[in-house]
């Protein structure tokens, strides 16, 4: 018993250093030498100021922007407080929230709203919307920005990321890059 206690204490300390310090530092070292941008979160800069990460969603609610999905993270897509809504399917709050989003997104039109545009993502930081959700918003954005629908439509289609290797995941539109392209 005593012998195993001593071994356990020594073993814990030594392997803690190996697995808890040396290993993560080694991964950090290799990653920052070979994939620095990715290891640091793919930050985007404008005029020397960080304006976002290619991977982290931002809130867009104005009529001239393509809208982001509702979010249950901290206010303003706070990426230090990621969260889903955790509303169950029979939650009254969920149904009411979706109804409100549907009213504001459809703005009186009769076309049903693509589901992702009115539901919160798991992380609350979803950087993407579906191509369906982006195309749905083309008429409004074109009207607000005084652009032709054909031009905005083409811009959306340029920003559709297809499935990885044509197989994995789902086609999606990175909202930050689409809205930045729109603002240019």
């Amino acid at each position: 018993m005593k012998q195993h206690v001593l071994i356990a204490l020594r073993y814990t300390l030594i392997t803690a250093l190996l697995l808890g310090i040396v290993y993560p530092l080694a991964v950090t070292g290799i990653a920052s030498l070979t994939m620095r941008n990715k290891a640091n979160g793919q930050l985007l800069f404008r005029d020397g100021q960080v304006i976002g990460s290619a991977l982290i969603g931002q809130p867009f609610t104005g009529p001239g922007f393509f809208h982001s999905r509702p979010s249950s993270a901290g206010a303003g897509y706070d990426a230090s407080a990621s969260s889903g809504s955790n509303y169950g399917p029979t939650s009254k709050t969920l149904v009411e929230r979706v109804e409100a989003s549907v009213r504001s997104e459809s703005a009186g039109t009769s076309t049903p709203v693509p589901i992702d545009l009115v539901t919160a993502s798991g992380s609350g930081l979803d950087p993407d919307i579906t191509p369906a959700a982006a195309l749905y918003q083309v008429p409004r954005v074109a009207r607000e920005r005084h652009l032709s629908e054909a031009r905005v439509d083409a811009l959306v289609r340029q920003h559709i990321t297809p499935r990885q290797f044509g197989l994995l995941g789902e086609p999606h539109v990175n909202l930050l890059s689409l809205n930045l392209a729109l603002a240019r």
Partner: protein
Amino acid sequence: MTLNGWLQIAVFIAAILLLAKPMGSYMTRVFDRRKTLLDPLLSPCERLLYRVTGINAEAEMRWTEYALAMLVFSAATLLLTYIVERLQGRLPFNPQHLPGVESALALNTAISFTTNTNWQSYVPESTMSYLTQMLGLATHNFWSAAVGLALAIAFVRGIARRESKTLGNFWVDLTRGTLWILLPLSLVFALVLVSQGVVQNFKSYDTVKLVEPQTVTGADGKTSTITTQTIAQGPVASQEAIKMLGTNGGGFFNTNSAHPFENPTALSNLLQMLAIFLIPAGLTVTLGQMVGSPKHGWAVLAAMVVLWFAGTLTVYSAESHGNPLLPHVDSRASLTQSGGNMEGKEVRFGIANSALFATVTTDASCGAVNGMHDSFTPLGGMVPMINILLGEVVFGGVGAGLYGMLVFVVMAVFIAGLMVGRTPEYLGKKIESFDVQMAMLYLLIFPLLILGFSAVSVLLPKLGLSSLANHGPHGLSEILYAYTSATGNNGSAFAGLNANTPWFNYSIAIAMFFGRFIMIVPMLAIAGNLAGKKIVPASAGTFPVTTPLFTILLTGVIVIVGALTFCPVLSLGPVLEDLLLRAGQTF
């Protein structure tokens, strides 16, 4: 459901079946202490570690000593994590200056990670420093997985050895599992994850100037303008790799593998799912090889695949149908969207990958999530729960899945013996009353903890019910899922439940602790007892454990034991919720 969705699911399971044999054969070599390619690099480290810590690598242990060494080691690691959590405010690698963790939460977390559960009552990005994540939590992802591996190998030795008193050396199995299997795989996998965009740095959190500043109305009715976004950072990839390979599942961030920094692309998502099943699938091959009956390993694997498929089919179908209560939305699958129930799911994964991930993470004892199980449809959310309630033997956790499955194998063989009126045998070993008693003990502790704690929580309005985020049958599901996940050492959650209260922190800690360690003891007792038995030569009356008939019997035993125990509570939770959803009832 779409063709592409099924194609992605097919690619996943095909990859697992292809990887099982090389992985399993490698693990057999590692634990039999045979030559491997990594020996020139690792053998000197191994010898050095034994010398410094005072391990006699040639000593063999009986099951009681093996269990003792395992318990003492787990206690030591638990203590270290508790200390690091409490002192993190005064330790380095803490750019956000987070204070020490409060005691109930620190204890819950230390037990959670020691037991390979990774239940998280805390919000990591605002609670845990980088040092705590690396030294306090990621280390446990290695240790608890290596412990699970060692225990599974000990059980297999119990079956394989004849007239032997011992099961191997715990310290040697622990070391070889860590150095030869978990560490090299993690190192490679971490770098692949970075290539997909998983972050790995020690920066303080970034502040971003929002492209479109937002005006928000607070709870007090005042409006304010938000112009910036804070982006949490950290050494994520190194932890993410072992989180999946060790079937731990504790997220670096609050939303786990749904967070774009933990799981940025469809490829990282596929690899994470493969990492969950890689070692458990390989272990079935290891089992076959070590007991000298490779076909038996495949027969066990076949039972796992059958149950995996049933789960995946159910979740995928349920989530594809979407939520009928949401009006005026388009949730049909088309070329431009995957449709379905998108609340709590990420666009880049869509329905198929979210459904598959939820199935895989609960088949195994991983508990990482890439979508919020709390927001799944009633039947879609019931499958993850059932997967854990069946004992996480469908592939299962690293090691824990295999020894859990072997307990079911003992039961299946016993039932087969009863049916034909012969003394049951398993690979030439007579299964006698002691073995069956221990197997039943293993199988009964589990529902006792889950149903007992759930019942108490439901009966305590101030302690249990006040933590609920959802009401009606879904509320029962939230509590049931919490104790299921804790006892099964899974760690996923119906996360609406506020579990960071003294009642839940302590009761869940007890469920996790007993669910791991109390169940290991009867399991090792069976192994120790089996090791001492003689081999009875096979005869015409021997029930073969290598055939499809055995696979069917094993699957049946798992389903019947699980169904008989948990049907009543499931019918009050998810089943009732499904009926009310169809009737249009909200809560």
